[in-house]
C-alpha cells in the first residue's frame, strides 16, 4: 500500500516514468508521449492530497533511509513549496497534454524523457530540504532544459541552447561552490540545520557563500544581468517547453533564492541590494519586451520583467511583500504558461513569430485570441483578474516599506506596468482589429492544442472570480515563510 501522502513520491513517480520511458522507447517511441501526462497527473493528485496536511502542520518532512534530519537527505514541504509543486504539476500536465499534438519532431522518446526530467527537477527543487539536493535538482532541471531548448536542432535553438548551457553550467558551479562553502562552515547540508548553525556567523562572513549561491541561482532565476540567455532560450524552445521554462522554472530558481535568503541565511539587511537587482531586472525586461517583434521573444522578455516584479516584491522583506510576490508568482506562472501555449498554437497556424503577421487573426482564431487577451489582462493586472490583486498587494507592500524613497519605487513599478500594458495592448490590437493578410488561410488550432490552454484559462478565470481564498492562503504562506523558526523547528523538531 503506497502512502499517497509521502512527498518523496513527487520525485519518485516522474523519475519512475522516465525510466519506464527508457524501457518502452525501444518498443514504441510514440507510446512514450502518453507517459508525461500520467506522471504529472499523479503528481498533481499527490500534491492536492498534501494540501490538508500542509495546512495542518505547516511543514511536512519526509526522510530517506529512515534517518531523521539533519543527517540524511530529506524533503521538507511547506506552503510555498507545495504551491509551487502544484503549479509545476499542473503546468506539466497541461504542457504534456499540449505536447501530444504539438510535438511532431523526432526523437519523441528522448523529448518526453527530458520533459519528464524537467518536471521532476522543478518539483524536486521546490520541495527539497537539503542544500546539495537543491544543487542536484538544479542540475537535473538545467540539463534537461538545455536539451529541450536545443531540441529542434535548428540554428537558433542550438545557439540559444549553447549559450544557455554555458551560462547554466557556470551558474551550477557557482551554486555548488556556495553550497560547499556553507558545508565547510557549518558541517551540514540540511537547510534547517544550516539555518540554525549559521546564526553564529557575522553578516559579512555569511555574505561570501551567499553571493555565490545568489549568483548561481540568479542565472537560472533570470535576474539582471545574468538573464541574458533567457530571451534566446525561451523562444527557441518548443512552445510547450517555453511555457514550462517561463512559467515555473525561473520561478523555481527564484524560490530557491527566496529559500536561501530567508530561511537559510536569515538575511533582511541584504534586501536593498536584491531590490536594486530586481528593479533593474524589471526595467530592462519590460523595456526590451516593448521593442520586440517576435512574439515569443516578447513573452520571454516579459517573463524577465515579471520575475523582476515579483522578486522585487519578495525583496521588500515584509509579509505583505511576500504575499504579493507569491500571488504574482501564481498569476505569472499560469498566465505566462498559457500565453506561451497560445503563442505556440498561433505560430502553428501563422508560420511566423513576427507580431505583424499576427494581425487580424483574432477573427479566425477566436478562442486562442480571447484567451490570449485573458492571459495578457491578468498579467497586466487589470481587474477583475487575479493579477490586479497581486499588483495591488505589491504596491501596498512597497508603500509600507519605508527604507526608501518608496514613491519613486512605486512610480517605477507602475511605469513599467504601463509599458507592459503598452506592448500587450499593441499585440492584442493587431490581433483583434488588424487587417488579416491576404491569401493566408488561418483557422482555429486543433482541439488538442486548444483544450490544454483553455483549461489553464478556466483556472485563471476561476481565480478572477474567487480571489479571496487564494489571497488568504497566500497570506498564510507569506507569514510561514517569514517566520523561519517554524520551518527550522519542523524539520529539526524530531531531535
Amino acid at each position, binding site marked *: 500500500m503506497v502512502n499517497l501522502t509521502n512527498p518523496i513520491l513527487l520525485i519518485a513517480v516522474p523519475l519512475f516514468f522516465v525510466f519506464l520511458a527508457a524501457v518502452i522507447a525501444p518498443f514504441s517511441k510514440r507510446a512514450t508521449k502518453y507517459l508525461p501526462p500520467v506522471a504529472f497527473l499523479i503528481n498533481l493528485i499527490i500534491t492536492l492530497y498534501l494540501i490538508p496536511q500542509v495546512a495542518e502542520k505547516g511543514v511536512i518532512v519526509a526522510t530517506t533511509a529512515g534517518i531523521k534530519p539533519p543527517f540524511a537527505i530529506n524533503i521538507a514541504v511547506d506552503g510555498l513549496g507545495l504551491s509551487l509543486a502544484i503549479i509545476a504539476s499542473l503546468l506539466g500536465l497541461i504542457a504534456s497534454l499540449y505536447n501530444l499534438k504539438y510535438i511532431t519532431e523526432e526523437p519523441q522518446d528522448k523529448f518526453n524523457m527530458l520533459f519528464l526530467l524537467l518536471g521532476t527537477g522543478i518539483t524536486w527543487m521546490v520541495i527539497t530540504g537539503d542544500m*546539495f539536493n537543491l*544543487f*542536484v535538482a538544479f*542540475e537535473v532541471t538545467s*540539463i534537461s532544459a*538545455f*536539451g529541450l531548448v*536545443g531540441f529542434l*536542432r*535548428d*540554428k*537558433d535553438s*542550438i*545557439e*540559444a*541552447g*549553447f*549559450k544557455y*548551457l*554555458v551560462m547554466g*553550467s*557556470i551558474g*551550477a*558551479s557557482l551554486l*555548488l*561552490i556556495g553550497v*560547499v562553502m556553507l*558545508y*565547510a562552515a557549518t558541517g551540514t*547540508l540540511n537547510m534547517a540545520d544550516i539555518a540554525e548553525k549559521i546564526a553564529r556567523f557575522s553578516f559579512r562572513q555569511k555574505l561570501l557563500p551567499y553571493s555565490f549561491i545568489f549568483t548561481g541561482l540568479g542565472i537560472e532565476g533570470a535576474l539582471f544581468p545574468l538573464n541574458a540567455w533567457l*530571451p*534566446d532560450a525561451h523562444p*527557441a524552445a518548443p512552445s510547450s517547453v517555453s511555457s514550462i521554462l517561463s512559467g515555473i522554472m525561473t520561478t523555481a530558481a527564484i524560490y530557491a533564492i527566496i529559500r536561501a535568503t530567508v530561511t537559510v541565511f536569515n538575511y533582511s539587511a541584504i534586501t536593498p541590494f536584491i531590490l536594486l537587482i530586481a528593479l533593474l531586472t524589471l526595467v530592462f525586461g519590460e523595456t*526590451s519586451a516593448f*521593442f520586440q517583434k517576435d512574439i515569443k521573444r516578447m513573452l520571454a522578455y516579459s517573463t524577465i520583467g515579471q520575475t523582476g516584479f515579483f522578486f522585487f516584491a519578495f525583496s521588500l522583506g515584509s509579509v505583505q511583500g511576500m504575499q504579493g510576490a507569491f500571488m504574482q508568482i501564481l498569476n505569472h506562472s499560469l498566465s505566462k504558461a498559457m500565453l506561451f501555449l497560445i503563442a505556440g498554437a498561433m505560430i502553428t497556424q501563422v508560420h511566423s513569430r513576427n507580431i505583424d503577421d499576427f494581425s487580424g487573426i483574432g477573427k479566425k482564431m477566436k478562442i486562442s485570441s480571447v484567451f490570449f487577451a485573458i492571459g495578457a489582462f491578468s498579467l497586466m493586472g487589470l481587474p477583475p483578474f487575479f493579477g490586479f490583486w497581486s499588483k495591488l498587494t505589491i504596491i501596498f507592500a512597497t508603500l509600507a516599506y519605508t527604507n526608501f524613497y518608496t514613491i519613486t519605487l512605486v512610480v517605477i513599478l507602475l511605469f513599467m506596468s504601463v509599458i507592459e500594458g503598452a506592448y500587450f495592448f499593441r499585440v492584442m490590437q493587431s490581433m483583434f482589429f488588424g487587417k488579416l493578410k491576404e491569401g493566408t488561410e488561418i483557422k482555429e488550432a486543433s482541439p488538442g492544442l486548444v483544450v490544454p490552454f483553455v483549461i489553464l484559462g478556466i483556472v485563471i478565470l476561476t481565480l478572477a472570480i474567487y480571489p479571496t481564498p487564494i489571497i488568504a492562503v497566500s497570506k498564510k504562506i507569506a507569514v510561514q515563510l517569514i517566520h523561519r523558526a517554524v520551518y527550522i523547528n519542523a524539520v529539526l523538531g524530531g531531535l
Partner: protein
Amino acid sequence: MIFYVGAFILIAVGLYAIIIKKNLVKIIIGLDLISSGTNLLIVSIGYVKGGTAPIFSHPGILPQMMVDPVPQALTLTAIVIGASELALAAAFVAILYKHYGTLDIRKVRGLKW
C-alpha cells in the same frame, strides 16, 4: 590552503577561457576547468592531513583522523553531472559546427536584443 588557491585559480582560468577564447571547444574546456576546480574545492574541504577512510566499525581510528566522507560523495555526484553537461555541450558544438561550418563563436551570433 594550497588546494583552495589552486581550486580558485582553476575556476578563474576556466572563466577566463569562456570569456576570452573564441573557439567553441576552448569554451567547453573552460567549462570543464570550472567544474574541475569546483570538485577540487569540495574534496579539499573534507580533506584531513593524514586522515583515513571514515569507517566507524574499524577499531582504532579516532573520529578526528577521519576524512569527511560527505564531500567525497558530493564530488562524485558533481563529477557525474559535470560530465553529462560536457557531453551535452560537445553535442551542441558538433551541431553548431554543422550549421555554421566553423567553431568561431564570433560567427555564431544569430540572436540578440
